[in-house]
């Protein structure tokens, strides 16, 4: 680097200036979600588009309302993209044909009660989208577990624009014709009926379907390959680092492999776990939220591994078939503790903060 490279004198010690701002980061993440979302729109048709729209608008409205009440300028904070992203992440984690009020309540809950009540962007303890999703799941267990089989928008039987609106407003007609079970839910139900996985999964969708995404699920869990692709793009652009996603996926895969090798009839294999539910979305887009994850790289590894392991535990032994949202929230609560115990080493001191002798790099006695 030549001295001429520095055009303006830094205010203090040399700082590297980044072009990233909050809105750049948020909009890049949104762009990374776009392929998977568009593909989901194609798979689930007009009802899912309306649901996405209403959730995002509700999240933006909740944010604007709170900023107005707090006497802050609404527009700059509204257009930083964080509320848009919160609504977006929530929308693609919902059952795609949910009624309108699910999206409305979820969007408002996410930005008002999970984010602005704590002070807005940067102050929230928990991931707002996941708080809203857990709120919806606990409050409306019936509506939140109706998964429909994909019905591409170009198919003859798919609901058109008008029918899509009706589904959003009045619910799904002839539910049995379209309802389906996600792989995790299916495995759990069959196990509880006493049918082991070796037999039940023969008829079920193989994990290979997960790549093309033609299977029941939310917008953000069907097309695993597009979600993972978006996540890799974020990694490449250095919006996120590899620590949380890798640790989380290993945290799911490791216990799954061990348990599956012990008893394949009782425990799903690691591939199914990684490609099902919100594992990919959670690892790349949700657990990596800057605000609610630890600051140090080592801390992020602990955080990610915890998210993954808890997800596996909840999926396998918990009451719900899917556990990513619960796992992320639990680890969010642990983030301050992780940050307290895992701190970066200061130059010239050891991990405990004791000063080192410059000559020997040993602690001065």
């Amino acid at each position, binding site marked *: 680097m030549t001295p001429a490279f520095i055009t303006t004198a830094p205010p203090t010690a040399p700082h590297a200036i980044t072009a990233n701002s909050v809105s750049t980061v948020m909009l890049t993440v949104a762009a990374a979600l776009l392929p998977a979302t568009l593909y989901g729109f194609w798979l689930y048709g007009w009802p899912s588009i309306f649901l996405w729209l209403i959730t995002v608008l509700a999240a933006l409205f909740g944010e604007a309302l709170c900023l107005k009440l*707090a*006497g802050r300028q609404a527009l700059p904070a509204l257009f930083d993209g964080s509320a848009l992203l919160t609504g977006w992440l929530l929308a693609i984690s919902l059952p795609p044909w949910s009624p309108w009020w699910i999206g409305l309540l979820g969007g408002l809950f996410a930005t008002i*009660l999970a984010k602005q*009540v704590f002070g807005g962007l940067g102050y929230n303890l928990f991931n707002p989208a996941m708080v809203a999703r857990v*709120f919806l799941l*606990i*409050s*409306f*267990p*019936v509506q939140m577990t109706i998964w429909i089989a994909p019905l591409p928008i170009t198919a003859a039987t798919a609901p058109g624009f008008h029918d899509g609106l009706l589904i959003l407003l009045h619910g799904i007609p002839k539910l049995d014709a379209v309802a389906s079970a996600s792989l995790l839910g299916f495995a759990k139900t069959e196990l509880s009926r006493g049918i082991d996985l070796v037999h039940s999964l023969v008829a079920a969708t193989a994990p290979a379907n997960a790549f093309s995404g033609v299977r029941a699920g939310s917008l953000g869990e069907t097309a695993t390959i597009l979600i993972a692709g978006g996540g890799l793009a974020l990694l490449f652009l250095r919006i996120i680092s590899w620590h949380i996603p890798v640790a989380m996926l290993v945290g799911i895969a490791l216990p799954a492999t061990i348990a599956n090798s012990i008893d394949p009839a009782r425990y799903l294999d690691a591939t199914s776990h990684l490609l099902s539910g919100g594992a990919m979305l959670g690892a790349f887009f949700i657990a990596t939220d800057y605000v609610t994850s630890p600051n140090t790289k080592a801390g992020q590894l602990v955080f990610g591994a915890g998210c993954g392991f808890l997800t596996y535990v909840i999926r396998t032994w918990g009451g719900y078939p899917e556990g990513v949202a619960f796992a992320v929230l639990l680890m969010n609560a642990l983030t301050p503790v992780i940050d307290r115990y895992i701190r970066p080493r200061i130059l010239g001191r050891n991990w405990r903060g004791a000063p080192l002798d410059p000559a020997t790099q040993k602690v001065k006695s």
Partner: protein
Amino acid sequence: MNYRQIMKDGLWDQNVVFSQMLGMCPTMAVTTSGTNGLGMGLATMAVLICSNMIIAAIRDFVSPQVRIPVYIVLIATLVTIVDMSLNAWMHDLYRVLGLFIALIVVNCAVLGRAEAFASRNSVIASALDGLGMGLGFTIALTLIGLIRELIGAGTLFSQASLLLGPNFAFLETTVLPNYGGVLMMILPPAGFLVLGLLLAAKRLYERHAARTAETVSQPAATPAVGCH
């Protein structure tokens, strides 16, 4: 001591739940419906009035060194009486509230009033303080319970006849028929949510009232400026 101020303190200015933030355990745990909140509030009020009166009556005989054990024994006795009475005469309500009735013993509000008020005021003033604080507590619990019940199940005062007798069955209303319900409002997190939002509403109202009072007392001054 101004009796009117004592009542006002209990109901609003020093409200046990909304200002002193005492007795949070019953506030969170039993306010799943209006009836439960009302029952718990009334039971606490009965204990509070009696304990305040007795402690005010014996305040000159109890030395400061032993006052806490004495208060606790007195309150525990009263709570046991309420507990057994409820078990005998309102058994259905007791099955809902049972665990928490015994815990009135350690409700900070009861011991707090004994320490802060009854131990240094006359019997009549203490009884009034018990009534005011108890009423304030009852109103707060009932309000939280009603909000949670309305959003959570779409009813108001369900099973009120268990608590108040068949004559009060008219209180039981179903506001929203065919309502699916919001399960979370009946679960513990909603206790915190509703309490927090009510606290915010009370602060907002008090700030607004203070600002209005300021404007009225100084008409020449510039009107209160908004937050913008």
